Every structure is written in structure tokens, then in C-alpha cells.
């Protein structure tokens, strides 16, 4: 398996009035053309890891890494222009809530075309055709109609599909999905995951799936990284998750109510200071 992304000792720091906040503290992993899950609670640094790879960290933050290598390119050394040409083209990111991440005053079709024409020289007619094909590929039933709709006119599930279409139209090699289904209903969640799964398999993409839902991630990904307080506490194959060794991973698994299991009260996490060390 060829390595697509190498991350070694990634650190993200935010200077604040009360001192430096270490959001990500020495994260290392490699990604091939596979599905990698990153799980953790809010504040564990999982989203900041994704954003640092994408190059979306706020400018006042400080990013350091021994290696942050995407397909032979050192992401921290290349120019801003080169980074821009990668972003949205070879590396794409799906955000949590389509309500906030789509442009509300632009039709869905135009937003997709804009992405495509930023990165490829195609005629307007062809761009439109490819956008509609892409909307069909994410299983939107009437793509011609949805093309002209604005984000507020579609449901959350539909909006998220449009977002996926927009991200995949340039054929990225690496897709970072930051809580792509957390804002959706359970039934719609599975539809979106199925679409993602097919696209990742058919196109041979690398996928980083960031989520707080350990069970969902383990059913979807090949490998799972568990983060706590900005660093990795455990890396485990998804199928071995029930044998997780770290007490934090076990705690995350056990604290969720389960249909049919009768655990009253639910076990809660007993956070140990040494986990953060």
C-alpha cells in the first residue's frame, strides 16, 4: 500500500491572553488509500489535526511538525499558492453542518461549478454537465432541479450530499471528513456513509473520518486513532476495537447506552491525569 500522507510529531499551538494552548501535541500517523478514523471528545484536537493537514488553521496559530508530507510534498514548506492549488483539488474536506458550510446566496450548482473551474480549465457547459453528473453520483434523485436550488431549499441530508459532490468533483486523493454525519438523522446518516464508502472504494481515495462517535467510526473505518488532550492514546484496527487496551478507549465504548443492555447507572469516564501526559 502506497503512503499518501505522512504526519510526524504534528503540533498546533494557539497563543492566547492566558498563555499558549496546545491543541495538538505531537500526533504521528501515516495514511494510505484506506479509511482512517480519528475519534475523541470535544477539545481532544481531532478537528485541529484535520484542519492543519488541510491548511485551514487560523493564521495566528503556530504549526510545527517533523514531517507533514502529502505525496512527496512537504505541506509546511510549499508556498501559499501551491497549498491553495492542492486544497479543494487533491485534498478536500467535508465539514459538519451543510447549513453553515454552504454559501447561502449561491445556488448549489453554481457552488460546485465554482470549485471545478477554480482547479480545472473546463467550459461552462461541460462544468455544468459534470456538476449534474456528480450530484447524481451522490444519489440525488433529480440533479437538474437541485442544481438550481439554494442551500436553504434542501434538507440537511441533501445539503450534505451536495457538499460531498462539491468536494469530490475535482477527484481528490485525500478526503478529510470532519463529523460529516453528526448533524444528520440516523437513517440519513447511513445513506451518506454508504455514498462516501462507495466513492472511497471506487476512486481509491484516502479518507480521514473525524468523529466523536466511536461506534460509528469503528463500523465504517479500517483503522481508528483515539485522541485525548491533543495526542494519540491508542491506534487500533477497527475490528479489534472491543479489545482496546487503553482505559480511555474502553471508557468511551462503555459509556454509551446500548439497546438491550441494562446498565443503570451508565459507567462514566474516570479521567486520569496521566492520560494527558
Amino acid at each position: 500500500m502506497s503512503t499518501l500522507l505522512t504526519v510526524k510529531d504534528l503540533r498546533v499551538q494557539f497563543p492566547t491572553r492566558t498563555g499558549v494552548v496546545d491543541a495538538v501535541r505531537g500526533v504521528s500517523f501515516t495514511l494510505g488509500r484506506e479509511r482512517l478514523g480519528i475519534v475523541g471528545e470535544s477539545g481532544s484536537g481531532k478537528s485541529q489535526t484535520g484542519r492543519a493537514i488541510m491548511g485551514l488553521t487560523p493564521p495566528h496559530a503556530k504549526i510545527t511538525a517533523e514531517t507533514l508530507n502529502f505525496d512527496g510534498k512537504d505541506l509546511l514548506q510549499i508556498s501559499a499558492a501551491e497549498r491553495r492549488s492542492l486544497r479543494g483539488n487533491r485534498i478536500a474536506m467535508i465539514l459538519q453542518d451543510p447549513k453553515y458550510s454552504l454559501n447561502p446566496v449561491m445556488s448549489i450548482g453554481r457552488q460546485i461549478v465554482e470549485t471545478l473551474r477554480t482547479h480545472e480549465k473546463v467550459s461552462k457547459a461541460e462544468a455544468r454537465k459534470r456538476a449534474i453528473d456528480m450530484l447524481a453520483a451522490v444519489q440525488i434523485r433529480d440533479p437538474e432541479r437541485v442544481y438550481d436550488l439554494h442551500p436553504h431549499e434542501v434538507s440537511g441530508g441533501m445539503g450534505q450530499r451536495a457538499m460531498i459532490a462539491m468536494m469530490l468533483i475535482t477527484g481528490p486523493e485525500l478526503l478529510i471528513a470532519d463529523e460529516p454525519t453528526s448533524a444528520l438523522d440516523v437513517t440519513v446518516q447511513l445513506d451518506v456513509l454508504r455514498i462516501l464508502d462507495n466513492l472511497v472504494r471506487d476512486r481509491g481515495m484516502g479518507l480521514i473520518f473525524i468523529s466523536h462517535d466511536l461506534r460509528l467510526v469503528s463500523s465504517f473505518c479500517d483503522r481508528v486513532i483515539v485522541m485525548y488532550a491533543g495526542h494519540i492514546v491508542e491506534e487500533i484496527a477497527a475490528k479489534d476495537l472491543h479489545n482496546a487496551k487503553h482505559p480511555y478507549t474502553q471508557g468511551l465504548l462503555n459509556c454509551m447506552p446500548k439497546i438491550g443492555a441494562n446498565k443503570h447507572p451508565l459507567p462514566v469516564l474516570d479521567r486520569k491525569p496521566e492520560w494527558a501526559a
Partner: protein
Amino acid sequence: MKTSEPKALVVDKLEVTFDRFRALRGVSLDVMPGESFGLVGESGSGKSTLLRAIAGLAPTTGGSITVNGKLLGRNRTKAFYREVQMVFQDPYGSLHPRQTVDRLLLEPLAVHGFPDIEKRILRALDEVGLGSSFRFRYSHQLSGGQRQRVAIARALILEPSILLLDEPTSALDASVQAEVLNLLEQIRRDRKLTFLMVSHDLAVVTHMCDRLMVMQNGAEVERLSAADLARHKVTQDYTRNLLVASEGFVRPDVPAA
């Protein structure tokens, strides 16, 4: 004492219409005192609207609501709000950003003219597992779980008998969710409260509730007990789909790449 206890909450063929959209289409349910009843469904199914209609926050156009044997009219009385309190989904949006926890807890007491304000505030904080050190903080100084505890304290401070819970944990991390669910269960046991709880998460509802109702498009799909649900004894396809969906992603059989 009467042999048949009056029901804590009876909703009969309730209709809610926003402009011309029928958000609730004749929904009925009854909840016994001390029972915990769950409402499940996807967004837009009307589960939150039902809760808001009971609290008097949605325009009802038909049907009736009876609380502890008293039929509710168009306007809610002050006494009603002492009996019924609501906890909202988003702890970031439901607390006043410019008021300290103390002010937040004081307001309902002042409105209803309670004596012993000082003691009640301290007891309410203690009950939800926040020490008195939290009393003079603002909500932005609290984590999501702590905020939801404050919201629960604010609802409990009036000593209601019925608590309406609208997705009380869906904005929280799984580990914090467990803490808040445990807290809610303990309070219900200690105070013999009646819960009406809305959630999109079947696992949460079956954990917390004895009976539940599945809703879709503003109407009831199915009413069943949590035990039946756990044994997959469901009659409607819609409920079955929800059950399958709550078990996580299942990859269709794929030939090895």
C-alpha cells in the same frame, strides 16, 4: 386515596398548525405519574413540537392536554409552570449569556415568590453535582455538560412534578452524556418525577424510558415498551429501519479489492 391514580399527563388528538403546515396530526398519549416516556423520530417528525405544545410554546389548533387531572386552556397559569418545566437541547443557547448562574436560578424563584431563596439555590446546585463555587459564574465559563446541569437545576428549582426534556444530551460528548443521563435518572428516582423525553437516539430513549412512541410526519407510527424494542418486537417497518440504523454502518458485501 383513590384507587385509580390520575394520569400525570394526557394528550388527546393534539393538532398543531403553523400557517398551513400541520406539524402535529392528532397525536395522543398518556403518561402515568413517575413514568418516563420517550418520543423518537427523525427531524421534522413533530416530536419537539409536541413537547413545545405541552409547554405552551406552540400554537395548538385542536385536541386537548390534561396535566395532573387539570385540562389546560389556551393560556398557561403560573401554577402550571410550577408543575411542568422544560430542559432544552442546546445548553449554549438556553442560558442567558449576561447572567450569572445565581441570577439564572434566582429568576424562577422570584417569579413564583418562593421563600428561602438562598437555601434553595445552594441545594439546587448541590443536587446537580455542581458545588457552590459555580454560583457566581457566567455560562460562558462553563463546559457544555456543566451548562446542561445548570439548565436542569433551573428546571428543578421550582419543584415540578413533570419534566419535559428536549434532546437533553444530543449536544454533549458521549462521556458527558452518560453523566447527565445518570443525573437525570437519579433525580427522577429521588423526586418521583415524570419524564417526557425527546431524542433521536433510540439507545438513549430505551435506556431512559419504560415506554416510547415513534413518530413520523407529525403522527404516531407505533407505541411500544422499551423491552419490546430491545427484543426487536416491532410491527412497523419505519421503527425497524430506525433500529437497524442505530446499530451503525454495515458495509454491503464487497469483493476484496
